[in-house]
């Protein structure tokens, strides 16, 4: 039986961590860390968990401590944000290639510059090639639910990859919302104990982690890691299925919202999806055939499934809340467009970069996007493919 409560995304994730009671939480105790370790420090002080809580001197060190702890056979976690995630960069690749199922909570925020602490996906998208599984939440409930599923996905035998649980900085991390929590016992039963086959502290089995791999081995090691990421797709769906059976809330790679007969659609991530759904509802009420896909799992990217969901749509706008500086569109657009490239009939597709550094995204914005898509669908002319939305602009705006 779920427990109704109200809390921020940070507290929701910290609550999930408390219920799971991991062996080690290594954290950098100053900004740009999140409130998550602050909540967790209280649980430690109040004796609600028996986690080894290690305060280190940087995020590079917090991920390094997690790597050591996880290799030793512990369930190790941490949390960070923005520049803190960037500072972890090197060690994220180490964690993933050593195949250590660490779970990292990220409150996604902009990167400098100019200096800005608000939400976009600059930080997490910069780590999209680190080898971490990345799961994004629309709201507090999803952040909590995704976290409850993370350890099982990470620890699946043919996956063994670290997971990044992403929530939108401030919008989700700090806003209080209603939430349905599960009981401590039910969470513990769902997540289970961590019993790795091999680990450094296993006396009877000497083990070395993270060896040198000359060019005669590196390629094979990377292929094995790439296969593990493919295997993660199956694990994500299997854990989601058991989660639905246990707690009643349904998850997949992405959420399709009013897509059945949609002729125009937007592909979007995170909290903005809530705003965009309101616009979809209003436009549907006017008889417009519009829909929305909210991508939940960005790594592994569900390319085939997304292409299948978009194949009958006439015009698609992919919304990127990070600027990849590719001069060719953002990362979600690159993935979505390449996923659709081999479809027999594929939609016209544009990229809209929006919401950078906490810039507002509104129902009115969404309606402008759909009006633009309608024009593309009617004329068959895609027009400019890589567009920015929401900035003050001396030029005439495309939308």
């Amino acid at each position: 039986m779920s427990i109704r409560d109200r809390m921020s995304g940070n507290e929701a994730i910290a609550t999930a961590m408390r219920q799971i009671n991991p062996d080690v939480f290594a954290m950098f105790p100053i900004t740009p860390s999140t409130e998550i370790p602050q909540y967790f420090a209280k649980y430690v002080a109040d004796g609600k968990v028996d986690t080894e809580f290690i305060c280190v001197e940087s995020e590079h060190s917090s991920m390094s401590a997690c790597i050591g702890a996880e290799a030793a056979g512990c369930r190790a976690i941490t949390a960070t944000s923005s520049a803190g995630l960037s500072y972890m960069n090197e060690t994220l690749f180490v964690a993933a290639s050593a195949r250590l199922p660490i779970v990292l909570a990220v409150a996604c925020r902009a990167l400098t510059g100019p200096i800005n602490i608000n939400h976009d996906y600059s930080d997490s998208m910069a780590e999209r090639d680190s080898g971490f599984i990345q799961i994004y939440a629309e709201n507090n409930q999803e952040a909590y639910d995704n976290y409850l599923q993370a350890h099982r996905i990470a620890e699946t035998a043919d996956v063994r990859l670290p997971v990044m649980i992403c929530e939108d900085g401030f919008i989700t991390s700090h806003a209080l919302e209603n939430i349905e929590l599960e009981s401590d016992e039910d969470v513990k039963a769902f997540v289970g104990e961590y019993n790795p086959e091999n680990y450094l502290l296993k006396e009877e089995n000497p083990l070395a982690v993270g060896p040198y791999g000359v060019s005669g081995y590196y390629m094979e090691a990377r292929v094995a890691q790439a296969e593990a990421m493919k295997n993660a797709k199956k694990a994500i769906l299997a854990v989601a299925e058991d989660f639905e059976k246990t707690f009643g809330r349904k998850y997949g790679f992405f959420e399709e919202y009013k897509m059945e007969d949609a002729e125009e659609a937007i592909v979007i991530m995170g909290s903005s999806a809530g705003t965009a759904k309101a616009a979809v509802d209003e436009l549907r009420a006017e008889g417009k055939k519009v829909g929305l896909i909210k991508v939940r799992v960005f790594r592994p990217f569900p390319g085939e499934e997304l292409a299948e969901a978009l194949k009958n749509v006439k015009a698609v706008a992919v919304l990127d809340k990070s600027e990849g500086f590719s001069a060719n569109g953002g990362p979600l657009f690159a993935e979505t467009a390449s996923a659709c490239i081999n479809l027999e009939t594929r939609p016209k597709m544009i990229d809209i970069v929006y919401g950078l550094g906490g810039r507002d995204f509104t129902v009115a914005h969404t309606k402008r996007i759909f009006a633009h898509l309608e024009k593309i669908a009617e004329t068959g002319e895609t027009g400019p493919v890589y567009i920015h939305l929401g900035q003050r602009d001396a030029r005439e705006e495309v939308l």
Partner: protein
Amino acid sequence: MNKKAIEITEQSVWQDLTCGCEIYEAGSSRLTLTGEWRSKIPVWDAEKCRHCMLCTPFCPDSSIPVTDGKRSDFDYDHCKGCGICFTICPFGAIEWKEVH
């Protein structure tokens, strides 16, 4: 089934690598010959050597074998050619030569 490092070679397919390239036995560095990195080579002169045992602990790669208090010739399969032994030897018993 996890393979031992000794069973994994540069002919192994990726499916035969261990997860994360973990190594499940001790002393596996002996299996990997890394001496080819050298650009210069230390050459031991047994006549001049007094077996003072200064070179051995200075070698960063355990490439100077010692038996019963006496050193023998270099382990060239693992010597990286750093030259520390040549620098440290008080008796001029180690020459420092170009690799040809």
